[in-house]
């Protein structure tokens, strides 16, 4: 494990410049990625499948050859993807033994789009199986360890994706967020992660957890990086009936707009005793930064936030009980008995919530409450430009803490589920560190399709702070 500065530690903008000015090559980038995987992934365990190094090298060479001045900022950059995205010819498992050995006959739209921009897929990441979890421990491929402290979880369910980027194995990654699954691991690994507006990015080829809550989104080392990736991912897909017709703006434009006059609302329901005091401190520090940048911070109230967890779990579990019905081992895959206890638990609860005699009280009521929460959030967002809140109740727990306590496991999603239930975008970014040296993140939530606003506010925060520039000890950082 080398402590020398790596190429992959650079931002997308810097790498794009280095590549286009021939100061480095895609071949060098993938070589570094392959070396990092070889050195560290035995410990970190962020990948389930990695691409053959020779193949990867060949595609890097092709990338260098086809480069023109018009090449995308993503051209030649090694990236990783959660194993919930089908990739033709490459094993895709959703981290479940049920899909061990499954080779999809087609590729997810988001992967296609990113590949078309010239990025190079390095491997498929470990996760909580089927999205069921917030710690990458509900996996049949062994937990992923947090690069900042390998006794702790990396978060989830896109834990492997976050760990790969944080340990220098890829420049960026594609995760998936249904109840916090991008934002949670991003925060635990000191990364920036974006949960997009529902429908902003195509879900075609995404192994479904909860169809009305699932979103496809990027993770990277900075908000600026996210803008470039989102540019490649966003847009209408005719293969996804729920994908939005909304035009895709230029996300890099407006990143540096001043925050003067911007109003940032803090929902009081988020700042309760459930919150670790270190997280409260970090957010208070952040509000001071925002005010120095010219924004005004204020308190808002969204009472139904307190019901967000029951709403989310009733809806998500109902939908997952339905979405997992196809894994009957008739056409592909192994038997259902191989579902983990946590997944079986969720299927049973979801089936119950939809069953005759209970569906009205449970599923339908959750849907009605959802409509009301949507209205409350919209009303709060009328009073401010963005909302600010914590991502998780505290920094990354120790391995074993959450997976063995199903209720605590569910409560880890306390602050993140509302965005999915309502469909609004939410940006997670580093906000500090705990005494023990573990990253603490915060999130900015906005109106539907207001990713540009979130990216602007987040980027400006990152010009005034340096939390996001820190790297874990394993990469030579000081932590």
């Amino acid at each position, binding site marked *: 494990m080398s402590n020398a500065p790596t190429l992959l530690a650079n931002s997308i903008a810097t790498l794009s410049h280095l590549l286009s000015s021939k100061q480095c090559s895609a071949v060098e980038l993938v070589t570094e990625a392959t070396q990092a995987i070889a050195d560290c992934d035995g410990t970190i365990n962020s990948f389930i499948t990695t691409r053959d190094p020779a193949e990867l090298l060949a595609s890097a060479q092709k990338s260098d050859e086809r480069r023109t001045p018009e090449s995308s900022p993503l051209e030649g950059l090694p990236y990783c993807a959660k194993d919930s*995205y089908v990739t033709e010819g490459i094993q895709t498992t959703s981290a479940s033994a049920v899909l061990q050995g499954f080779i999809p006959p087609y590729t997810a739209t988001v992967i296609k789009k990113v590949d078309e921009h010239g990025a190079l897929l390095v491997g498929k990441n470990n996760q909580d199986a089927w999205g069921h979890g917030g710690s990458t421990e509900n996996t049949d491929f062994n937990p992923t360890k947090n690069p900042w402290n390998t006794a702790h979880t990396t978060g989830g369910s896109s834990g492997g994706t976050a760990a790969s980027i944080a340990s220098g194995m890829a420049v960026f990654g594609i995760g998936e967020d249904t109840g916090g699954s991008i934002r949670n691991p991003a925060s635990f690994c000191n990364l920036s992660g974006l949960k997009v507006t529902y429908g902003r990015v195509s879900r075609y080829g995404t192994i479904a957890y909860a169809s009305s809550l699932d979103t496809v989104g990027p993770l990277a080392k900075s908000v600026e990086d996210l803008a470039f990736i989102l540019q490649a991912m966003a847009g209408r897909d005719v293969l996804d009936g729920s994908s939005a017709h909304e035009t895709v703006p230029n996300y890099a434009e407006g990143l540096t707009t001043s925050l003067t006059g911007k109003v940032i609302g803090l929902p009081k329901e988020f700042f309760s005793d459930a919150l670790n005091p270190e997280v409260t401190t970090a957010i208070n520090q952040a509000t001071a930064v925002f005010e120095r940048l010219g924004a005004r911070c204020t308190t808002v109230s969204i009472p139904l936030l307190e019901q967000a967890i029951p709403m989310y779990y009733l809806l998500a579990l109902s939908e997952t009980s339905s979405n997992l019905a196809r894994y009957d081992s008739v056409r592909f895959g192994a038997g259902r008995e191989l579902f983990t206890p946590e997944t079986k638990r969720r299927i049973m609860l979801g089936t119950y919530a939809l069953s005759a005699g209970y569906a009205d009280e449970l599923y339908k009521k959750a849907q009605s409450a959802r409509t009301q929460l949507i209205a409350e959030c919209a009303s709060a967002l009328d009073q401010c430009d963005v909302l600010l809140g914590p991502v998780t109740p505290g920094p990354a727990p120790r391995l074993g803490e959450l997976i063995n306590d199903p209720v605590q496991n569910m409560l880890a999603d306390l602050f993140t589920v509302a965005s999915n239930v309502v469909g609004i975008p939410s940006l997670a970014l580093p906000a500090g560190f705990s005494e023990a040296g573990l990253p603490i993140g915060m999130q900015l939530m906005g109106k539907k399709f207001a990713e540009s606003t979130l990216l602007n506010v987040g980027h400006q925060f990152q010009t005034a702070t340096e939390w996001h520039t820190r790297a874990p000890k394993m990469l030579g950082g000081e932590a």
Partner: protein
Amino acid sequence: MTKQQDTTTATAFSLICGLEIHAELKTSSKMFCGCKNDPFHATQPNIHTCPVCLGMPGALPVANRTAIEWVIKLGLALNCTINLFSKFDRKHYFYPDLPKGYQISQYDIPFCEDGYLDTPEGRVRIRRIHLEEDTAKLQHTTVDGKKVSLIDFNRSSVPLVEIVSEPDITTPNQAKLYAKKIRQILRYLDIADCDMEQGGMRLEANTSVQSEAERTAGTLPAYKVEVKNINSFRFLEQAIAFEVSRQTAVREQGTLPPQETRGYNSAKGETFSQRSKEEAEDYRYFPDPDLPPIRFTPEWIENQREQLPELPDSLLARWETTYGVEPRFADSFVESQTSATWLEAVCNETQQANLKPNDVVSAIHNKKIVSTTGDAPEKTIAAYQALVATDAVSESEVTTAIETVMTANPDAVAKYQAGDTKVMGFFMGQVIKELGKKVDANQIREVLTKALS
């Protein structure tokens, strides 16, 4: 008293029947994906498939717009109300021919509701018409000595329209008439081929027999028996008739027939029990989150209504009034819009040529002339004229022929003069044969009658 003699009991129970009809729509692609919709003529199994209709991980459905438009057309043709807001729901159950473990169907807000269809035996109300996807096709066979079930996904996710009637049907014949009419309309609108042998149209009858008391009180019997897998109109009629007898016999004993699903054995002419339906299965319906709901404007619906072609019943009635054409002759021409348009043109031209359209149409119907849809109307009229053209015969030729025949058949003459007028037919035939020409029969009859008297 045996049952045969007990006529009061025999008529005391009457049929209450509703039909559920499924028809595969003939859109070019499937209901929720772009695969070719061709389940019957595919050269191999599993060639019209994709991740969506195979229920692969990550696949998503996208609704076929044409299929929806066609269901609306059907609903309007059957006098239904169209719901301006509608949606697809997931219907959950496990079976190897259902790849996703749920069928995308419609639950509480179908596209069409509250319509009706008139039959010669009365009106049958239609409760609802909805759209759903078909399942794959299972084939039970033996491969290498092992009993296996093979699954062909060519049919998976083909659009299926389901038409549910109210239990207004009161005779097996009416059931047959209703089902035939539905097929006629589906074919006329050119939205389904309804090939019953292949399963392009499937019939299910929900039957019960109602007692006098129930009829008076206006209550339905507290059970119903579903008869499934009937693939012909004749079998439909037979199966329902069998059920009426079977259920009546049970009720006459004072008990209710068990609520169940039965199949029909056409060889034996009997229904047989398939499974008990005491409890409805819990399908855990909920709106499919992958498919946004569908909203129509009243203007768009009216536009669809205006674009509907004139339907068979209306055509037959109008042809009768305008052209004097009897429906029994014109019936076969209302199977498609092409043949109907053609027949209308023939009627019109015939009328303009001062000929009787009914005569022409009946000649075509009875295959007295060779004429098919698409032939130029003039050609058809010419063929008719050739059929009825008579050669000119002089009076003396007629008189000579009559004399010849009368001389050759003195006994027949005697019979006629004795009062047996039926012999006239014999004489007509003989005279016409003698003349050896196509003659106007009426002209002959007049002269012959005079000669024989």
